[in-house]
């Protein structure tokens, strides 16, 4: 009969299946095994090997951070042209908005000026009319 540790390595047992479901989280500490499962891993070569493979996977994934895919020709030029076009569109929008504000401001100023002028005329006429009485 095979020793338990070797047997475990060859054929996953029921505890192996339960622990295996947790190992992808155990590897980065986001899942903590309970005492029974920890004891199982300590005695089970198969689960230890699987956990080691997850550690290798994580290291390999982290190593990908520094590798870059071959960038298609002209990508940066396209991106900058896209941004420039967007910048121009927003500049045109800003200019149009500015003109609209100026136009409305002009109308408002003209209206105010006309109103003020009319008020002055009315006031001066009223004064002229009252002068004889004042004397």
């Amino acid at each position, binding site marked *: 009969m095979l020793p338990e540790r070797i047997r475990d390595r060859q054929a996953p047992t029921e505890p192996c299946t339960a622990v295996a479901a947790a190992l992808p989280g155990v590897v980065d500490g986001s899942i903590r095994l309970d005492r029974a499962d920890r004891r199982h891993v300590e005695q089970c070569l198969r689960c230890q090997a699987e956990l080691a493979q997850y550690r290798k996977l994580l290291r390999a*994934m982290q190593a990908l951070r520094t590798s870059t895919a071959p960038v298609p020709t002209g990508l940066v030029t396209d991106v900058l042209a896209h*941004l420039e076009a967007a910048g121009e569109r927003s500049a045109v929008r800003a200019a149009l908005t500015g003109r609209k504000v100026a136009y409305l401001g002009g109308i408002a100023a003209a209206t105010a000026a006309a109103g003020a002028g009319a008020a002055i005329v009315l006031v001066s006429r009223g004064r002229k009319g009252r002068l004889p009485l004042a004397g």
Partner: protein
Amino acid sequence: MRFADPSTALVDDLVDAARTGDHVAFEELVRRTYADTYTLARRLVSDEEDARDVVQEAYLRAYRSIGRFRGDAQFSTWLYRITANCASTHLGRRRRHRHDELDEEVDVPDTSPDHDPAAMATASLLRDRLEVAIADLPPRLRAVVVLRDIYDLNHAQIAEELGITESAAKVRLHRARRRLRTQVFPLRGEEPLDHEVEDQAHAS
């Protein structure tokens, strides 16, 4: 702020200048980061043309919102989040357009070594095998494992950019790691998981 030579400026200084509307500074940030941004986009959408679109959209969004970048994270992390969000939007739009189920039945070219002799030759290195295995993942699993394990975004950030809950992000991460581990680091005598059966079991 104006730079005599933007190519020698520090990233933080370029970011500060770009936040105040310095277009030259933003263009320099694009030049410094586009390869990284494209690589992330390529890993998330697994298609060169789609990745180009995602990169363009990401920089446009970054350009429009850099004034609101508070600087409490690294610029690169901020850009990764925007790129992830654009990729998620792009995949969602494509899924609606094509009326198919990209979540699980993704139409990714089969570049696994078993099916492609050319890939078999180039996949001799671990990195290549891993990139192929990542590309073979369904997009929703791929996005989470790429953002967490390669780009080190936390679950909250990933959940926010992909429009999912944090618990969903964790479940997807574990499933993705399990698939990658069985593909790239199989145990002796271990058969690759029957992912279709596994997915159906999870879906039910």
